[in-house]
């Protein structure tokens, strides 16, 4: 959820928020179940001997357990970059909110799925080929013209030379 001064408030809590709330609730309820009363009931013999120590042991047990659990959760969040992923996913879901039909899902067959990823490249390649082909055809048309002109000129020169030759016979 937004921590800063953004004017836009999300209507529903983001995934990160839900995650944190759910973990906190879990801990709360666990601690509530493992109440001091329950602890004393189990360790009655020791409690009778050392009531104060029992209390202190219990308090430490609970605080250590909470700390370890929170640390583990934090590690999981860091390793998986969960904070970032949660907020990205929230955005992606928000953008799709007006869409009702189910979206595409991988078919499990790589050859099928990879086709669509290749299509944009193929289309680009096709338009490139079309344009260089057109250029080349145009170029060749001009060169062909020059070649034809050249042939005419050579024929012309040959004729002139023949005429001269005859004049000198």
């Amino acid at each position, binding site marked *: 959820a937004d921590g800063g001064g953004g004017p836009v408030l999300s209507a529903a809590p983001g995934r990160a928020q839900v995650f944190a709330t759910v973990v906190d609730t879990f801990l709360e309820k666990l601690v509530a179940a493992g109440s001091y009363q329950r602890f004393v009931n189990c360790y009655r013999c020791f409690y009778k001997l050392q009531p104060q120590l029992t209390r202190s042991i219990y308090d430490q047990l609970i605080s250590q357990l909470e700390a370890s659990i929170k640390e583990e959760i934090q590690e999981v969040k860091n390793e998986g970059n969960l904070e970032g992923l949660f907020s990205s996913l929230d955005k992606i879901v928000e953008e799709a909110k007006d869409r009702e039909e*189910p979206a*595409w899902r991988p078919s499990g067959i790589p050859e099928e799925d990879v086709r669509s990823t290749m299509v944009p490249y193929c289309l680009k390649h096709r338009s490139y080929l079309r344009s260089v082909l057109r250029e080349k055809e145009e170029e060749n048309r001009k060169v062909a013209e*020059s070649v034809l002109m050249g042939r005419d000129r050579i024929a012309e020169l040959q004729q002139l030379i023949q005429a001269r030759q005859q004049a000198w016979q």
Partner: protein
Amino acid sequence: MSVDPMAYETQFFGFTPQTCMLRVYIAFQDYLFEMMLVVEGVMLKKLDGIPGCKISPSQIRKCTERFLLFMKEHFDKLFAKMEEVLLQLVLNIPKNVLLPEDRVQEQYPYSKEEFQALQDELQQLQQQYRAEAAAEQALRAELEEQEAVKAELEKILQCFDGLENICREHGAGNFKESFALLTQSSKKLQDVLKDVEEKSKKMKQHDQLM
């Protein structure tokens, strides 16, 4: 554990949600057991220091087992609920959502045949281009040859023109005709010479025979 493999979520998160939950479950459980062992240890140590204590270690162990059993039950129930919520609301991708990296799938839904047609078209274009390139080479080669031939022919023409200019300069208007006559006479002379040569050869042979 749900049967749904959550493959799309795995693609997004880089891990399987269920595996993540399992890892966390095992870690939490381990902490719980560890803590209880520590509790036991502290109590046993304290009891050691009390002379004439009537509480045996096995009693303490029984206490621990009772407490642990109770905790584990609640732990499992609470964790199952937490896992359900997380898998449904947090570590999931709704059915109507398409990940940005997969946008092309909906932009270009090409069937096998359509894709093959596109590939064929590309191949055809490449062949056409190669043909044009070959044609270009042939054309340019001929152009080069033409230049060489043209140059030669123009040289020859220049020669002729040069001769005519000389004639004009020296006022020999009939030079062409005289040259033509000269060419003819020299041809006739050559023929006569040949005749004479043949006749003298014959005479020599005749002489030898005699």
